[in-house]
Structure formats: C-alpha cells, structure tokens
C-alpha cells in the first residue's frame, strides 16, 4: 500500500513538474498574449494541481487531503475566470493578436459587441 | 546561503533607495514597499536562517522539535509587514490625492510650502 502510494505520488509529481515546465515554456514561446494564456492557464494549473494531489496522496491524512483538494478546486474554479478576464481586458484594450492569427470574429469596440 | 540573503537584502535596499531618489512620487511608493521587504529579510536573516523547521509544536508534544527556527524574528516581521502595509496604504492614497490636486507626480514641483 505504502509503495503504491509512493508510486502514485511520484507519478503525479512527475506529471506535475512536466506540465509546469511545459506551461512555462509555453508562455515564453507562444506568439501573443492570448496563446500564452492558453499555455499558462492550462498547463501550469494542471501541473500545480497534479503536484498538490501528489502531496495529498503522499500524506494521506484527511486534513492534508482536504487542503489539497481545496487547492485543486480553487485552481479549477478561478483559472478560467482569471484567463477570461485578462484576455477580455487585453482584447478590449486593443492588444494586437499574433500575425499568424487566422480569424477574429470578436468586435473590438464594446458598443459594437451588442449589435 | 547567508551571503545570498545578505546580498538580497542589500540589493532590495539599493533598489528601494534608488526609487526613493526618483522624482516621481509614484515611484516613492514602490521604494517604500521594497524597503519594507529589505528590512523584513534583514530581520529574518539576522535572526538566523533555519530551513523547514517552523516553530510549531507537534500535536501532543510540549515543545517544538529540536533545531526549530527562532519564532521571535518571525513575530517581529509579521508585525512589521502589517504595519508597513497599513502605512503604505495611507501613503499611496496621499500620493494619489496630491496628484489629483496638482496634476503632477514630480516631487520637485512640491515647493509650494517653500516661500
């Protein structure tokens, strides 16, 4: 049992570390802020959640598990809202898209958005 | 590690001092903020760095585990953090009101008190 937990921990942590790294690489490599946000808000959050779950499995005590679950829940509730807010604000304030962007159907001006 | 922390203290202090020497009153706020960080880290480092042994008594024990960190500097820093936050909040509002009244953030323009 203990060994299984250790393996699960290692797995979760490994995945977590990997995704953290990839996500961070993403925000460096990606061409514009919207794409960077994609990388950041998903990969990094997944990585961090994975690491938190790893900790939960490692300790296994209810107190700890609830804390880690809270972290994951919070990430999953807040990250989309946060990315949405930033992206929206960026788009509304006229931040340009990357040149390779194929389409932009969203009107720039707030007033136009309603029509 | 001590050297690194000492350097960090000094570098944060230098950054803070540099900002405090700026003419923009907005930069003053950042300077004060960083100055607080520098002082806090100074206290922490001066009190002795201990890695990952917080002064918390385990359940059922009577004393924290041997080699725990010194709790006093921590209590001091905690107090200092809160105080400098409160004071900074006030200072920030002050700077803003002043900007509202004078339309400038240049402290060299603040000579009205000088006859």
């Amino acid at each position, binding site marked *: 049992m203990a060994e299984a937990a250790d393996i699960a921990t290692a797995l979760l942590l490994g995945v977590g570390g990997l995704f953290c790294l990839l996500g961070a690489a993403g925000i460096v490599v990606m061409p514009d802020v919207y794409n960077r946000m994609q990388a950041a808000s998903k990969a990094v959050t997944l990585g961090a959640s994975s690491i938190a779950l790893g900790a939960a499995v490692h300790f296994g005590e209810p107190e700890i598990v609830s804390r880690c679950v809270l972290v994951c829940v919070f990430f999953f509730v807040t990250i989309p809202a946060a990315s949405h807010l930033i992206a929206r604000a960026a788009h509304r304030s006229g931040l340009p898209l990357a040149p390779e962007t194929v389409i932009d159907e969203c009107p720039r001006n707030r007033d136009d958005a309603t029509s | 590690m001590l050297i690194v922390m000492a350097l*960090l203290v000094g570098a944060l202090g230098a950054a803070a*001092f540099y900002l405090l020497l700026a003419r923009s009153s907005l930069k003053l706020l950042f300077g004060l903020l960083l100055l607080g960080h520098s002082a806090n880290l*100074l206290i922490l480092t001066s009190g002795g*760095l201990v*890695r990952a042994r*917080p002064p918390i008594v385990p359940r059922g024990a009577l004393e924290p585990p041997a080699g725990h960190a010194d709790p006093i500097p921590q209590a001091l820093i905690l107090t200092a953090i809160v105080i400098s936050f409160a004071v900074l909040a006030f200072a920030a509002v002050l700077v803003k009101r002043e900007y509202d009244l004078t339309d400038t953030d240049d402290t060299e323009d603040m000579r009205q008190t000088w006859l």
Partner: protein
Amino acid sequence: MLWMILIPLVAAPAAPWLVRRLGRHVGPLLALVPIGVGLALAIHLPMEPGTWRLEVLPWVPELGIHLAFRLDGLSITFGLLISGIGALVLTYAGGYMGDDPRLGRLCGLLLMFLAAMLGVVFSDDLFVLFVFWELTSIASWLLIGFKHEQAEARDSARMALLVTGAGGLALLAGLVLLTAAAAGSGIPLDRATRISALAGVGLSGHPLFTPSLVLIVVGAFSKSAQMPLHFWLPRAMTAPTPVSAYLHSATMVKAGVYLLARLNPVLGDSGLWHVLLTLTGAATMLVAAVMAAGQSDLKRILAYTTVSVLGTLTMLIGVGTDLAIKAAVVYLVAHACYKAALFMIAGSIEHATGTRDVRRLGGLGRAMPVTAASGLLAALSMAGAPPLFGFIGKELLLKAKLDLEYLGVVLALTAGLANVFLIAMALVVAVRPFLASRTVAAPDAHEAPPAMLAGPLVLAAAGLFVGLVPGVFDAALGSAMASAIGGRTIIMKLKLWHGLDPAALTALLISAVTLALGFAVFLRFRAGLSRLAGRFARLGRHGPARAYERLYGGLMDLAAAVTRATQNGSLRRYTRLVLLALVATCVYPLSRAVPLESVGPVEWGWHEAAVAILALVGAVTAVLSRSRLSAIAMVGITGILIAVLFALFSAPDLAITQIMVEALTVILLVLIFHRLPAFSHLRTTAARLGDAATAAAAGAVMSLMVLVAVAAPLPATVSAQMARLSVPQAKGRNVVNVILVDFRALDTLGETTVVAVAGLGVYALVKLSRRARGEGGKP
C-alpha cells in the same frame, strides 16, 4: 534683603494701573518705593570697612545656588545710588512724559529695572547675580525700544540686547568656568558660586581660571560699553531721557564696573586682569572722550563721555592700588550724580525747546534759571572744578596714575588728555545752551515743571555737598566700599585740599592745565577742533559699529544662503542626504565589525538561491519599468517570491501574511493608479547614475549589516523560553501566534491600532480633501 528687590518688582506691574488711575502725578508716589529701599539701606550706615551682612535663602540646592545677598560698602553705595537716582528719575519721568498714556509702562519698566539692578548689586551668588544681570539687559532693551514705532528705536534696542546678550553669554560661560575652577580647587559646591567665599582664595593656579577671567571681563566690558563693545550705548539714546539718565549713565552701564569691582578680590591676583582692565579702560577713556567732541546731539555727547568715564573706572580697578581704588570710588559716585543730572537737564532742554542739537541751543539761562544753575553745578563737577566732588575724583585719579611705577606718567597724561575733552564737553552740554547767545528757534522756552527740576537740582547739590564735606562720605561708606573692592581694608580720608606734597602738586598742576585746555577746546568747539573730532567720530563709525553691521548683515546673508542651499524643498535631496548620512556614518563601524569568515552556518540551497535571484530580478525590473502597472506586477512577484522564501525558512505565518498583503497591495495600488499617468522619467542620466551609486552604497551597507548581525550571536534563550512556555502556559502550539497574541500582545495591539488609524485616515483624507478641492483648492 530679598524684599528690597521684591517690592519694586511687585510694584512694577502695578505702575501702569496706577497711572491709569492717578495720572501723571504718580511719579513721585512711585518714587516712594525706591526711597523706602534707600532708607532701609541707610539704616546700615555708617558701614564699618571690611564687614558685611549676609542673607542666604535656599533656591537651587542641586546646583549649589542660593539666594545669597550681601550688604557691604560696595553694594550699599550702589544700592543708594540706584534707589536715590531711581526716585529722582521716577519723579522726573512724571514730568517728562506729561499726559502720555505710556507713562505707566515707562514707570513699570523703570521699577522692574530698579529691582533687577538692586538684585545685581546685592547678590553674593554668582548665578543669582547673573540672573539679575540679564534682567537688567532685558529691561534696558525694552526701554531703548520704548518708542517702538520708530525703526531706529527698534534697531538700537536690538543692537543693545544683542551686544549685552553676547556679553551675558560670555559672562555665563565665565561664571560656569569659574565655578568649575573653584569646585576643582576643592571648594564645596555650596560655596563655589559664592563671591564672598571665593574672594582671596587664589584660584589663579587652576587651568580654567584664565579662560573664565577673560570671559567674565568680556561680559563686564559689553555691559559697561568698553572699547570695542561701546557702540551700542550712543545708539541707546533713542530711549526716553529718564531712561538714559538712569540706565545708561548712572546705573546699568555701571553694572559692568560693579562686577569688575565686586570680583576684584576674586580675580584680581592675576596679571592678566590688570593688563586687560588697565589698557582697555585707558583706551576707552581717551577714544570716547575724543569722540564725544565730534557729536552735536546732547544725549550722544553725554553718552560718549559716559563711555569715557566707564573706561576710566575700569582702568582704575585694573590698576588696583589703594589710591586707584579710592579714586574709582569717588569718581564713580561723583559721575553717577553729575551725569544723571546732566541727562535730566538735557531732557529738560529738549522738553523745553524740542531739540537736542547743541548747535541750535543757546540763551536758555534766563528762561530756565533753575535748570541752568543745576546744569552749571553738574558741569563743573564733570569738569572736575573745585570745590565739587568731581574735582576730588579727578585729583585722586591723577595721583593714582602718577603713583604707578610703570606707565604712570603715560596713563596720567592720557587721563589728562581725556579730561580736556570731558571738560570741553561739560561746558558744551551744560553751559553753552544756557549762557551762549540765543540761537534757538524756541522763543517760548520755559522752565521745566517742578518734577523735572528736582532731580538735577538734588543731584547737583549732592555733588557740591560731598565736595565740600567729603569726610561724610568716606566715613559713612567710602572706606567700606573701597575695602570691598580691594578685598582688604582701605581707609579713605578725602580732602578737598591735599596740601603741598609733590604728587598732589603735580596732579593739581595737570588739573589746572586740563581745565584751561578744556576751556580752550570749548571756545573752539564750533571751529576746527570739532571738525577734527567729527572726522574722528566718522572714523569711529567704521570701527566696531561697522563691524557689527557687517556681522549682522553677513549673518543674515549666510543664513539665507545656507537655507536656500539646503532647505530647498526638494524631497529628493533630503532623501539623498539621509542615504549619504547612512553610508558616511556606517562605513567606519562596519569596517571594524564585518567578520570576513562569517559565511555562516546555513548550507547552500539552490532552490532558495534561485527564488532569491528571481525576487531580485522582479525588484530590478520594477525599478527600470516605464509603466506603473508593470511595476506593480513586478513588485508583486518580488513579494510573492519573498513569501516563498519565508515559507522555506520556516516561517509559514510570515509567508501567508506576506502573500495576503501582497495581493491586497496590488488591489490597492491598482485602484489608486488606474487614473494616473505613466511614470515620468525626469532625471538626467548623470543624476540617475549618481542616484544609482548612492543607492548601491546604501544597499551595500544593509548587506554588510546582515553579516555583522549573524557573525557572533549569543544563544537565543528568550526564544527557547517562549518555546517551552507556549504549550503548557499559553495553550498554543503555534509559537509565533502565541507570541503575537499573548507574549507580545502589546505589539499586536499597537499594530492593530496602526491598521485602524490608517483606514480611518484614508477615509478622512479622501472625504476631506475632496471637499478642499471642491472649495477651489486646485491652483
């Protein structure tokens, strides 16, 4: 004796009230106060030479200062002069001021001065004396500036107070040093400030003695208008004439002489004392006498002659032989009498004619016969003509000079030369206006009212009386006074006619010659000599008075320049000064304290190092950022990474608090900054480099401080105690929290107060300054 000082002091504030009630005739009524004092003093007559009465009340035992008062020949003589002339001046003032509503203030100030002056002469304690000394300066200042609507009066008053104030400071320093010298010579604290206890002790061996002597002498000189500190006295003539008569001839200016006389037994055994006093006195005597001849204003002439006489007295005390002391005694008393009289006469003339310019005065003898008579008497006394008291004084003076082994003849000739001018000026002041042909444009000149006649008449008569019967004086007081000055028994036997010993004859001869010469100078007053003297006086204007002006102006300029250069309203500069002070003061102790071996016991950790470096990167980027919001983001990162460091170094509470604070700071800054402009880059590159250097140096100081702190720690016993007590007694497992809410809850209470006040302050600031802006605060 204290009551003698207290009664006039209490009467002083009552004077304005009395005047408002009773009008101008209150002068004689108030004169009863000094008369009472005088009578009380007269009880002690005749005074046995070499004896005194002492009265000691405790005052400031911590400093060994007692309200010690001494009555001896010196103080009684002065006391009688002060109270007697005071009574006459008060009477005179009633007439002089007429129905001027400010009479009350004048009388009050005069009484206050009288009290202070009595305090000076009665005090046996150095510091009590000093207290009264300064009070006389203050009273003098208020009286010189009495007509304060005139700029000249204000300036003269300020000058007088500054000069005498500076002297006061020197005196204070001297007294402190003298006391220290006394204490250092083994005199107990209680007696180290007491003049009677210090007399004849012989402190001159103590290293502090010489500086104290110099300082005390400087203090006395400033008060007694000795060269080169004399220039304030002629300027002080802006005061009402009663004041001039009282303060600036008879009493206050003699306080310096009094002090020298009083301390002669204490300080007189040093050669420096003799040299300083004799030379300064002689110089003052001669120069002031010549300068008097260059004046045309009655009061100014009198002022310069006063300076000259003060010089003479100083010189005599400096000479210090029995004869010289006797001469000083007589000369002092005689001068007080005739000079006060002359001032009052000058006042009467001005009162009658509206001018004090001698060139415009003449022919008043018929209109003002009584004044003229008293003027004549006083002038003769001043001139040293027999049979007046002044004559005795002058004779003694000349004999004292001739008595000396060295320089005797020189000094005597100097005195004689000065005397020539004094005689001439005596005639100019008190004879010419009455006897010269009528030149004044005041046809309705009339005799002064009785109140203004009493003073001159009484004083002039006193001069005559004592001159005729000098034995009365020396029996009653003179010998006692001389003994007090000399610190040894000196018996005076004054005679109008000294017989035919060679010294007396020489003196008489010189006297006669000076009289003749003086008369000649007087006759030529209008012509060449006065022009010469006038030129000399102009030269004098470039002397110390000019130096004072220069000093005063230079001081103003310096103050303005320094203030402009430093206090220029630039926050940046103030900050830089603080940082430079930090670096400058810390460099030396750090260089002594930093242990090079203190790499420290904490092992290297690359996680922490990376986090620390990233935190630093955030801070540096914030510094360089051009956008405010980016800067907020960057300091946010710094804060969070520092929180992570806190967590790593065993401080979870700190980490959590830091994170919370960081988040709220970001919200706060964003709320505040969202309407503000981008950072303006206002500094030049050079300035920025300079700032960077300053900041780096200050930062380096902080770094080194850390190394100093961790180098040699003592064991953390308090923390250990807290850790032990935490669970069993404070019932908490988180020691940090237990410290915050229990062990050091008072800190937390204060901190909570800070938080509360900050919030309420922001509220008040926003609400109230919005109002201020609404009211048009925006420029």
